[in-house]
């Protein structure tokens, strides 16, 4: 009962956040300097008529919102315009149909392009996150358990340093080491031109290409998870119920497993969720360094080519993914922490 209300509330907030992101996304591109139509037209050989044609094609000739022809509040226009015939509603309407506009750069629907890349990014982020979480937490548990010993200090120093590394810098160094000494592929997702006899071969190829990006990703994010795990676990381990468990004659391993970890997981889940937004930063850099065909690389390309619909779409997709991931984490949290039910 109460959990259902908690869930409903979280879902509600997620939807509201998405709405906010959509609105922000729309206005960002219109408030900031630069004509969105002009932005797509880089070739000075295009005629004024052609520019106007593009404006019409992208709906940019319509008023921004009902009364405003432009975002300049001085320039109010006719208020009897059909509100559904304004840029904002056209935009939202298109969104609802899964249309994110046409890329200025490739002339393809942004949604299609993003979908192709989304899975690649999810693969990279997913694998990297899982490894970083598992390794980071293991290291954190080890450090907390051996608090104030050489093991702890070593792990701490390693994690802090790993956290401080600029992702792209680590990536480029690993790229050179990995390709020169370990014969690992330099970039891409597949070895182009290869004929795969089975899908296992194909996946092995993908896996081989994933090693370096994942390694970079893992190192960069492992540090933070380790630090958090260590400190929450230290907190949890100094709680009285740990002493109770110890007094019950329960072995250290079982205490860690049954009592400490589950309680320490609570802040971890929250932080992992909040961290998801941050992981995108890493993904952009890693995908660019390793030419991984994902959303991050797409953002890099789009930035370079000033492909605004693409940027807009990628940002929206990433934001929505992160919002949903957060929602999932919240729901997972409610499952982990029985106190949620009565909050």
């Amino acid at each position: 009962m109460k959990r259902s209300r908690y869930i409903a509330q979280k879902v509600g907030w997620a939807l509201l956040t998405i709405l906010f992101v959509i609105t922000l996304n729309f206005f960002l591109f219109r408030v900031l300097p630069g004509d969105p139509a002009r932005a797509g037209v880089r070739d000075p050989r295009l005629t004024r008529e052609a520019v106007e044609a593009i404006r019409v094609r992208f709906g940019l000739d319509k008023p921004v919102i009902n009364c405003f022809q432009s975002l300049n509040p001085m320039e109010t226009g006719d208020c009897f315009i059909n509100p559904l015939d304004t840029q904002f509603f056209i935009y939202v309407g298109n969104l609802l149909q899964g249309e994110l506009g046409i890329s200025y750069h490739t002339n393809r629907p942004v949604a299609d392009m993003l979908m192709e890349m989304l899975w690649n990014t999810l693969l990279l982020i997913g694998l990297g996150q899982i490894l970083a979480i598992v390794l980071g937490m293991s290291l954190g548990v080890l450090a907390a358990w051996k608090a104030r010993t050489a093991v702890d200090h070593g792990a701490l120093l390693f994690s802090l340093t790993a956290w401080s590394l600029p992702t792209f810098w680590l990536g480029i160094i690993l790229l050179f080491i990995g390709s020169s000494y370990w014969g690992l592929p330099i970039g891409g997702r597949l070895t182009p031109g290869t004929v795969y006899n089975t899908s296992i071969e194909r996946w092995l190829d993908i896996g081989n290409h994933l090693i370096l990006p994942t390694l970079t990703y893992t190192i960069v994010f492992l540090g933070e998870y380790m630090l958090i795990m260590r400190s929450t676990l230290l907190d949890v381990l100094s709680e009285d119920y740990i002493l109770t468990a110890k007094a019950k004659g329960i072995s250290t391993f079982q205490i860690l497993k049954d009592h400490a970890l589950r309680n320490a997981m609570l802040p971890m889940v929250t932080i992992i969720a909040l961290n998801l937004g941050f992981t995108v930063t890493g993904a952009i850099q890693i995908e660019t360094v390793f030419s991984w065909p994902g959303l991050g690389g797409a953002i890099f390309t789009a930035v370079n080519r000033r492909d605004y619909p693409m940027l807009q779409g990628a940002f929206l997709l990433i934001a929505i993914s992160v919002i949903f991931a957060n929602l999932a984490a919240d729901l997972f949290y409610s499952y982990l922490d029985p106190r949620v039910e009565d909050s």
Partner: protein
Amino acid sequence: MSPSPPPIRSFWRTFRRNRMGMVGAVMLILAVLIAVFAPALAPYNPYQPTRVTIDDIYAPPSPAHPFGTDDAGKDVLSSFIYGARVSLIVGFFASFISVVIGGVIGISAGFYGGKLENGLMRFTDIMLVIPDFPLIVLLVALTKPSLLNIIVVIGLLGWTSSARLVRSQTLSVKQRKFVLRARAIGAGNFHIIRRHIFPLVLPLIVVNTVLVISLAVLNESALSFLGLSDPTKISWGQMLNFAFTRGAMSAGAWWALVAPGLGIVWLVLGCTLLGQGLEQVLNPRLETHHLSVGSKMVARMMGMKEKPSEVKAVSGD
């Protein structure tokens, strides 16, 4: 009886013993010194054009250029020293903006509560979920990549964590009885915030600022990497950007990459260590537990209240 030391001095006494924090502070101070005295320290002025030849480009380290030269034949050491300035300016000012916004939002939300808090924190939650970096990229790409824009954009988007932290700290300070006492003696909101809330939230804000600096520095370097920095300003990120786009690795000029990269690591690590150290001193998380060493237990068993100050008193005596 001799007058006891003021809080700042007793803080320093404890902090001095915190190895992590001290190392971080030294690292950070060193970086600041390098930045401040750049003109005196740098063998050349990287902003001053000099005549170079092909042989000067990516020249390996030599007595004339201890860190070698970069893709424009400039002395890497000098750029490195001057680069500290921009990296630090971005770090400090962006985090200053973030922390001021976060502090104001956090304190007002935490202190006034009610609808204001609800609104502010919901907004914070929304901003917290939105991935920062793509938005930073977007905004910098949409505006023009000048140093000021970068600082403002990084600063404007970095406040969420500060706001949450400050709010929760404000809430916990507000719960403490001395705030109720201040109310009981008839103090107004402003007085309470100024005299009781702010001074006690301040240490946390300082810790947070230090950590936000490291994030801002990392963000600046990532922006540079994406080609979204001001190319006329030499920062470590900018140096890396030139090294990447102009093939330092392929040319075998590792020195052009290593110095600025390590500079960033140095600065970020310094901030992180200092932040962690400060946090340990100001809010001694117990580095110990029932399965291990225990100063909290010891403190409790030795009759000390479980208050940070008490624990400090034990180790400080």
